[in-house]
């Protein structure tokens, strides 16, 4: 008998889970498929060559806009990947207990790592193959119907001299593609995307495994009760403040006013600092809000929600982090939008169209991020069913439990969303300035006008309320599980 | 004794020998009654007016006087049945007496030493009984008896364990 378990055993132990584990595997696969489709679409746009096209959308026609489209598509996979992280938490306590039980049954830390790798790799690999397949199939299927005969703007750039070009735009009638289905994407790119995503998912799952590997008894017998630290919140405040006064610092310190790499690097670093600080700091907010509300409220729903928040600030913060990140990016986007709309010609609809498209992308991102809240709330309801059942048995009405679960997700999210949106907005205004110049008039008689960039209050309000409403809706949808979880039979469940 | 006889007569009129037989049927595991003891008790009860002589049954044998419980007798029986038995009114087991005296006469170290040896002896006996009980050849009667003894020894041991902690605490108190 060899010392190590057979691969078949590893795969069997990885796939041998309960209902929650199957849900996790399916969700991981589905989300990975979506991410693969998104990334392959981005790659497709990036690989648009001079011979491809023409396309109906200017976003695809202008090579200069391709990086923006690619970045938007890649950014859109961020909430998708975060959702995948949230999916990896479905039934996590039960899975950790199962892994700890394997350890008690003699599995070594390396065995457990292999088991988890098998499970996650299988799920993400399945999703990846599915996603790549769907993408290639979709490209093939959509190529015909989405190639229509219509008008498109043909741009011809002609070099007219060593330093001068002439740009010719003309409306032409011909076969035009709605989507870049004609781009020949190298197989290597498809392979890299399809392999790297599941690989990343497996690596991420190993990072999250630390506690089970190190102390199986801790998982079986104790819960984690670290108090959240305030340091990340300080990161967030400092990052936002620096961005907010960025243009003032730049003008006083004599840094160039253009987007030179050093300035871009500083701005990106500050944005990262803000984002990371916010993601890590939300636990502190949850804990603070929970403790604050719990010691003052006399509403039972609020009391339960607040106490649960204060007791486990990390669980809810995990679901909220992506929502806040999207809210922050959303706030920044609205700032950029206000800036562009003021400084460009209102007659040219290109900018407005593009900005509207960006808002559509933002809405999709919010929905994706809020789906994480759905997954989280459903998981909470199912994993804490013993607790819920005992509360119900003690006479707490289900309506109160439902309200408290809703409040549990919204209580820390509401102030944090306002903060995040405001931070994004402040940062953009700090970097781009609150005023700009616009030139009018014919050549040689131009008038330079200084315009104030308005704060887009309405857009901000829609963004904040929309985010909260979407999240509330998703959380509410997850509450359908409450009835089953408060069944008195659940009092006996140990998992 | 007197209440047991009264109780058996309350079930129906009986002569002396019948009382003895009934007793043995109702309490099979107890020590059997002597016939003389039964007759003496019946005489005493009659003197106190708690039982009365009934008819003489001479069918198929020697004359037998049957007894019946008087109303006073039944009242006395019910008074006794409704009376709560005092739970362990006097605590005077040999083990307890010895340990208490050890603490008083010698010192708590001697008491602790005694307790430790007693504990070892108890545990030895418990091992013996456990082995007997675990043996598949042992009869049910033996397993029941072993269970009974093990439970009592276990109660003793729990007391010994607590007593050891108490004497240790006592010595800590006295020598801080």
């Amino acid at each position, binding site marked *: 008998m060899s010392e190590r378990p*057979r691969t078949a055993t590893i795969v069997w132990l990885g796939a*041998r*889970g309960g209902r929650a584990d199957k849900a996790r595997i399916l969700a991981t696969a589905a989300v990975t498929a979506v991410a693969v489709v998104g990334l392959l679409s981005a790659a497709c746009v990036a690989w648009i060559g001079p011979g491809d096209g023409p396309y109906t959308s200017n976003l695809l026609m202008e090579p200069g806009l391709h990086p923006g489209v690619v970045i938007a598509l890649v950014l859109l996979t961020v909430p998708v990947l975060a959702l995948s992280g949230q999916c990896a938490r479905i039934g996590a306590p039960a899975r950790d207990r*199962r892994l700890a039980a394997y350890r008690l049954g*003699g*599995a*070594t830390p390396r065995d457990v790592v292999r088991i988890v790798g098998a499970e996650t790799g299988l799920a993400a690999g399945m999703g990846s193959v599915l996603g790549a397949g769907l993408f290639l199939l979709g490209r093939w299927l959509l190529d015909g119907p989405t190639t229509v005969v219509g008008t498109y703007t043909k741009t011809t750039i002609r070099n007219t001299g060593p330093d001068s070009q002439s740009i010719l735009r003309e409306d032409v009638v011909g076969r035009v593609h709605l989507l870049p289905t004609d781009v020949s994407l190298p197989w290597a790119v498809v392979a890299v995307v399809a392999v790297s995503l599941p690989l990343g998912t497996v690596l991420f799952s190993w990072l999250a495994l630390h506690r089970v590997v190190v102390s199986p008894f801790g998982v079986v017998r104790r819960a984690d009760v670290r108090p959240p630290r305030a340091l990340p919140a300080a990161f967030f405040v400092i990052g936002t403040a620096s961005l907010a006064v960025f243009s003032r610092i730049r003008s006083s310190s004599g840094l160039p006013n253009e987007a030179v790499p050093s300035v871009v690097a500083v701005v990106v670093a500050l944005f990262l600092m803000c984002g990371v600080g916010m993601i890590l700091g939300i636990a502190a907010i949850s804990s603070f809000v929970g403790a604050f509300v719990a010691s003052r409220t006399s509403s039972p729903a609020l009391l339960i929600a607040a106490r649960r928040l204060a007791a486990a600030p990390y669980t809810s913060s995990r679901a909220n982090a992506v929502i806040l990140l999207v809210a922050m990016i959303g706030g920044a986007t609205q700032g950029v939008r206000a800036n562009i709309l003021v400084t460009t010609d209102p007659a040219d609809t290109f900018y407005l169209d593009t900005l509207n498209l960006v808002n559509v992308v933002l809405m999709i991102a919010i929905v994706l991020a809020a789906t994480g809240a759905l997954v989280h709330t459903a998981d909470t309801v199912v994993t804490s069913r013993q607790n819920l059942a005992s509360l119900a048995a003690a006479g707490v009405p289900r309506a109160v439990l439902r309200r408290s679960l809703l409040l549990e997700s919204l209580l820390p999210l509401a102030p944090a969303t306002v903060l995040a949106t405001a931070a994004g907005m402040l940062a953009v205004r700090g970097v781009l300035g609150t005023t700009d110049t616009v030139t009018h008039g014919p050549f040689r008689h131009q008038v330079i006008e200084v315009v104030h960039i308005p704060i887009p209050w309405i857009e901000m309000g829609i963004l904040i309320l929309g985010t909260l409403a979407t999240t509330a809706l998703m959380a509410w949808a997850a509450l359908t599980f409450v009835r089953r979880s408060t069944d008195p039979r659940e009092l006996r469940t140990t998992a | 004794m007197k209440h047991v006889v009264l109780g058996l007569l309350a079930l129906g009129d009986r002569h002396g020998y019948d009382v003895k037989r009934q007793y043995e049927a109702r309490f099979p595991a107890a020590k059997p009654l002597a016939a003389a003891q039964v007759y003496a008790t019946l005489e005493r009860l009659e003197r106190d007016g708690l039982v009365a002589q009934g008819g003489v049954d001479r069918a198929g044998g020697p004359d037998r006087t049957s007894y019946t419980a008087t109303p006073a007798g039944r009242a006395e029986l019910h008074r006794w049945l409704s009376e709560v038995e005092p739970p362990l009114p006097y605590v005077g087991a040999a083990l307890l007496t010895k340990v208490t005296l050890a603490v008083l006469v010698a010192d708590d170290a001697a008491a602790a030493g005694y307790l430790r040896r007693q504990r070892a002896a108890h545990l030895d006996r418990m091992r013996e009984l456990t082995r007997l009980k675990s043996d598949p050849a042992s009869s049910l009667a033996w397993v029941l008896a072993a269970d009974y003894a093990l439970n009592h020894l*276990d109660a003793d041991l729990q007391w010994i364990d607590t007593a050891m902690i108490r004497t240790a605490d006592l010595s800590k108190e006295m020598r801080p």
Partner: protein
Amino acid sequence: MSRASQLPAPATAATISARGIVKSYGATPALREVSFRAEPGEIVAITGPSGSGKSTLLLCLAGILQPEAGEVWFAGRRIDDAGEEARSRMRRTVFGVLFQFGQLVAELTAAENVALPLLLSGARRREALAVARTGLDRVGVADLADVHPSQMSGGQAQRVAMARALVTRPDVLFADEPTGALDSLAGEQVLTELTRAARQGGTTVLLVTHEARVAAYADRELSLRDGVVDGPAHEVEYGPGR
């Protein structure tokens, strides 16, 4: 029978011993220099009131916890400084562990649970399950082979856990309050089976308990109090107590 007539045990025999074990949880000391030795096939009860360090000693001996000072030796080799991988591997080959509850994998059937240590050591599924069924039969729960732990009573689950702990025919079985969650009759059955199986297989059993009636199943007792071995040093037995 004179001691001299017995051959001394070879150095590689499955003797487990500890010397000067120190272990604390944060600032709270759990074990303060505890030494201990169990000969092959011995059944030793480790007793003491709660907080005396008896479970900690067991976990240190089983290689689940690492002591801060002192040494743990098994079969002539020092094991406390081995890596987590090596110690985990020992737990599924030469050691068996049995806890009060919660050790079975809820998602696996009884037979699969019992087969787990064999599978982790590289056995084929069919063979491992066959051995597991025999093991279940030996502790009298053959009919539970395809039942999940959640459908079992506490006593049944403990018997399955016992079958798993014994399935590799370990040299040492570590049992921490194995009947603590059972009523007295179910506990009695588990202990009877446990000691019988151990004596048949020559397995050393270290049995942590706070109950004298459980300790009575062992050959001898090691009593702990406040992290040290209880009683004057000369009363502490070493070597076979039978």
